[in-house]
């Protein structure tokens, strides 16, 4: 009875979408030769697709409104796998072994892809500090990534400085940019902040594109050296493997640092700021300073990732630093779960690796990101792996002593 009502509704919705998408999906014109192509079969796809999707949509919406109360009462199997030592210890060992032997069992090409994915893990973790922990929606995160990449490329080009000198320089310059941009904009309300950061990032990209004497314009900078290893000469395959290990180390470092920050006095202040700015200030927290720290620390990781990216690809140009890149990193954070470290790692790997191995994903990559952002916000705003609050245990025996037990992602 109820299901038929839903089916009927889905049917009407499908009809609506058939009408709505008709001109765009069916007609295709060749304006030069004045030919019109009619792709009637698309109507069928749209009809079936929207019927199924709208049915599922209604189902999930109803499920969501029913389950609001029960969230977090019973741990899901995934959660148990992640947090119960019985399961996660062996899993960790397997992952560690796999990570170490990866370059020896897979091809050069695959190692390169994995390295790229790890760069996005770093970017995701960095943006997670800003968006996930502090609630600062930064739509221009890619600007800091660009600052890192260009500081390595340019300082190397002009002054011949090496990778290991420029890695901290790139990180510091990015943090500096974070503060520079942050100082004026962090007073702004959340949505304005989003737009201003987007504006800043576009300005930086357009300058890189047009200021030829400074940044070599759209043609970019090539022949950026790969990082050295105590002066040993590496061929391209070896240096790809070296790059891979470097990124594994930096990702571990990022995970460690973000985890520590998250469960610290500062991390708590970020969370409080995300929850309620005014109450947070009234509780004695300096809003501007706390936000700036989040911004600068987030930017630092992007700066480092930028240096690593430039070293890995040996070529950069402004096209790598568009808004879409920012949107992709944001999708990683949203999909993974704001504030959740494990979630972001998994999401970064999924978002970069899936399109490489499944053709469907690579064709529809961007449209899927869009869909991911919408559906996650509506059905699972906490992400695939929701962030869990740290729990404290009280030992009320010796003068009220409480110990923190850590079970965060």
């Amino acid at each position: 009875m109820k299901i038929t009502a839903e089916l009927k509704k889905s049917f009407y919705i499908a009809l609506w979408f058939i009408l709505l998408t008709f001109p765009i999906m069916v007609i295709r014109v060749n304006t030069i030769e004045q030919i019109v192509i009619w792709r009637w079969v698309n109507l069928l796809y749209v009809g079936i697709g929207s019927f199924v999707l709208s049915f599922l949509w209604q189902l999930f919406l109803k499920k969501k409104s029913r389950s609001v109360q029960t969230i977090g009462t019973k741990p899901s199997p995934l959660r148990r796998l992640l947090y119960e030592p019985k399961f996660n210890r062996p899993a960790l060992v397997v992952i560690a072994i796999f990570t170490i032997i990866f370059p020896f069992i897979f091809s050069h090409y695959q190692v390169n892809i994995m390295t790229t994915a790890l760069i996005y893990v770093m970017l995701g973790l960095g943006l997670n500090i800003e968006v996930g922990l502090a609630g600062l929606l930064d739509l221009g995160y890619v600007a800091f990534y660009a600052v890192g990449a260009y500081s390595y490329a340019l300082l190397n080009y002009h002054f011949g400085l090496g990778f290991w000198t420029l890695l901290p320089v790139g990180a510091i310059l990015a943090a500096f940019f974070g503060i520079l941009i942050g100082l004026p904009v962090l007073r702004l309300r959340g949505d304005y902040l989003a737009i201003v950061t987007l504006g800043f990032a576009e300005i930086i990209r357009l300058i890189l594109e047009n200021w030829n004497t400074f940044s070599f314009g759209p043609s970019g900078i090539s022949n950026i050296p790969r990082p050295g290893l105590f002066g040993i000469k590496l061929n391209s395959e070896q240096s790809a493997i070296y790059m891979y290990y470097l990124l594994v180390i930096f990702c571990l470092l990022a995970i460690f640092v973000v985890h520590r920050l998250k469960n610290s006095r500062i991390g708590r202040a970020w969370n409080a700021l995300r929850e309620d700015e005014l109450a947070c200030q009234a509780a004695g927290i300096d809003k501007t300073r706390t936000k700036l720290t989040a911004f600068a620390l987030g930017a630092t990781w992007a700066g480092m990732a930028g240096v690593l990216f430039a070293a890995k690809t040996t070529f950069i140009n402004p096209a790598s630093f568009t808004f879409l890149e920012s949107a992709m990193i944001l999708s990683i954070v949203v999909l993974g779960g704001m504030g959740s470290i494990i979630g972001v790692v998994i999401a970064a790997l999924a978002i970069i690796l899936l399109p490489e191995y499944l053709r469907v994903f690579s064709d529809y990559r961007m449209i899927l990101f869009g869909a991911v952002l919408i559906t996650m916000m509506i059905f699972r705003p906490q992400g695939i792996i929701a962030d869990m609050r740290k729990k404290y245990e009280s030992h009320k025996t010796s003068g009220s002593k409480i110990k923190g037990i850590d079970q965060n992602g």
Partner: protein
Amino acid sequence: MDNVLEVKNLTLNFGGLQALDNVSLEINKGEIAALIGPNGAGKTTLFNCLTGIHKPAAGDIILHPPQGKSRRLNNFKINQITTLGIARTFQNIRLFGGMTVLENVMIGRHCRTGAGIAGAILRDKSTRHEENLIVNESYCILEKIGLNIYVNDLAKNLPYGAQRRLEIARALATDPFLLLLDEPAAGMNPQETKELEDLIYSLRDDHNLSILLIEHDMKLVMNLAQNIFVLDYGEEIARGTPQEICRNPAVIKAYLGVEASAEYN
């Protein structure tokens, strides 16, 4: 008697609306004072001025801390005022809903502690020590307020009365000497209100607090306050002891409706 807070001729308008008009008041050390008045009288707005959320157009807010020198608060930032020793609660509860009850209180300790980024990452001995201290102190506050059964629950899942008390706990964690409570009993049943009354007394006595509270529950106000200030349309229409206020014709006039409804409570 020495006062901890002096407000002189405070004035504030929102566009055409005169929200505060030449309001003056003093809070004595160790005193419980009440600020009453009909809805929209400007009580919350006065709190907002005292805590730096709104900047008054004219007048002075002067703080006399028990230790240290007096200060004019007019141009201080919100968090600076908290650090100086004024803490407040919000009428429309503003907790950090997605954080645990204990964490809400721990946030209050922020301005009295100092671990930085390096400390957070390296987690050295002094940072660990400070962190343990924050946890223990916060836990003690929760115990005092009677919220220790909720320690690890999310703040948004607490029952209403407990949320109001958690607001007080968070404010208390900032080590204030002046506590501003905005309708702490709103939405509480008589039993809870009675407990709140005892709590407010014990806060004053155990923590050497001076307290200014806004409240519509006249019985509670009459029981608690030594001194009452009455606002109406942004103007101070009366001040005095509970007995004096009860008899004041201006107050009775402004308050008739509310007084009548207070009897049902």
